[in-house]
């Protein structure tokens, strides 16, 4: 399951999609909007995406993961639109026969997502708006 959605993410649904009865566990990363960034109080975030390409790149990351670790199922949901403090922007869940692999793959997945997936966030603070460049 891979989705880019304007609706609130159902964490349970993403976890269920990653569950595999032959694995001892699921590792989940839940990215939320934090209240403070780069020295500013944040009011809200606005996420823009190139959804078709974002899905293609997420599928590529899943392929990369499956080439590196023994992983059963991966589920990724990324939200777009306006998000308030504490709201969930992304959920990545995956299952592996060995939990060490699941941890490594989940971390790789969020790292790569931030590198290559065409999704952008604009931080709206009291004194203005900024499109974030994490790589600057």
């Amino acid at each position, binding site marked *: 399951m891979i989705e880019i959605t304007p609706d609130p993410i159902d964490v349970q649904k993403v976890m269920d999609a990653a569950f595999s009865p032959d694995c001892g566990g699921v590792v989940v990363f839940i*990215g939320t909007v934090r209240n403070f960034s780069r020295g500013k109080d944040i009011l809200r975030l606005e*996420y*823009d*995406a*190139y959804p*078709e*390409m*974002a899905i*293609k790149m997420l599928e590529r990351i899943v392929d990369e993961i499956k080439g590196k670790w023994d992983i059963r199922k991966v589920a990724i949901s*990324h939200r777009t639109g306006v998000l308030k403090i504490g709201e969930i*922007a*992304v959920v990545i869940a995956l299952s592996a026969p060995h939990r060490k692999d699941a941890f490594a793959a989940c971390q790789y997945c*969020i790292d790569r*997502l*931030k*590198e*290559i*997936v*065409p*999704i*952008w*966030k*604009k931080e709206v603070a009291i004194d203005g708006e900024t*499109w*974030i*460049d*994490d*790589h*600057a």
Partner: protein
Amino acid sequence: MTITIKFFALGRELVGKSELQKSYDESVTVGKVLEDLRAEYPRLAQMPSMLLAVNMEYSGEDTVLKDGDELAIIPPVSGG
């Protein structure tokens, strides 16, 4: 031949639209289209850096475009 160009995030705000078409009589590279866009939309220079994607694959400026191709201007991504 006609190329569709897509803008997102800061790029969309600088250009003031999310999509436009450009027609060329003969084959062009990504770099040539970009040059034309910079001439037409000088505010694009305010974008600190960008990547380019042709038909949803990251591409370099040398890539030659075909009729119907979709070129996307990709500002630095910041998902998650």
